[in-house]
């Protein structure tokens, strides 16, 4: 199943909404870069357990994550890419 990587905030681009339109059961969402700003307002069709974010990008921005999303490091990011396929990047 697909690994979706979103790197822009929902305030800046439609990347997250396009990703949500293309999200099916078994897919994983990874928020990186400004994509982590979406953590406070994720689309309803993406299940909580599917949501991952890069801890480094969250920490850099001073964001507090209140939900049970999975914060990961770069090594785990690589593992997710191995586990899922294809890897689809949503930017802009």
């Amino acid at each position, binding site marked *: *199943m*697909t690994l979706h990587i979103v790197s822009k905030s929902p305030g800046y681009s*439609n990347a997250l909404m*396009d990703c949500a*339109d*293309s*999200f*099916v059961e078994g*897919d994983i969402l990874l928020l990186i870069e400004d994509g982590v700003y979406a953590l406070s307002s994720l689309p309803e069709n993406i299940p909580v357990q599917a949501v991952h974010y890069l801890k480094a990008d969250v920490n850099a921005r001073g964001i507090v994550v209140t939900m049970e999303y999975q914060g990961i490091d770069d090594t785990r990011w690589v593992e997710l890419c191995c586990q899922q*396929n*294809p*890897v*689809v*990047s*949503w*930017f*802009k």
Partner: protein
Amino acid sequence: MSKSILALCRRPPYGDALAREGLEAVLAAAAMEQAPVLLFMHDGVFQLLKDQNAKSIEQKSVRRNLEALSIFGIDKLYVCQHSLEKRNLNCGQLRLPGIAIELIADPGRFIAAFDSVLSF
């Protein structure tokens, strides 16, 4: 070795260089007999609009390049139905000679079937 490759085209044709450069990558792959499947989504559907006159902004026409796809061995395109509806467009406004257009209602299942996805 044969791999299924998807080119996901999400950019409008002139405001963003990646629309043209994405298309160049598609044509290069097709010329090497590794033609990717093209899915137009989001503002990428604007690349297909007829009657583009890019000369008025001193650019080359993206639409003209797209019309060459069949000569490069690509005779079918996929367009996200939702993206089209959201922009009040219909297939008739996009029709390319010699190329079939299929609307995709469930892009998620469509994308998941590919080995590799290039996002443009």
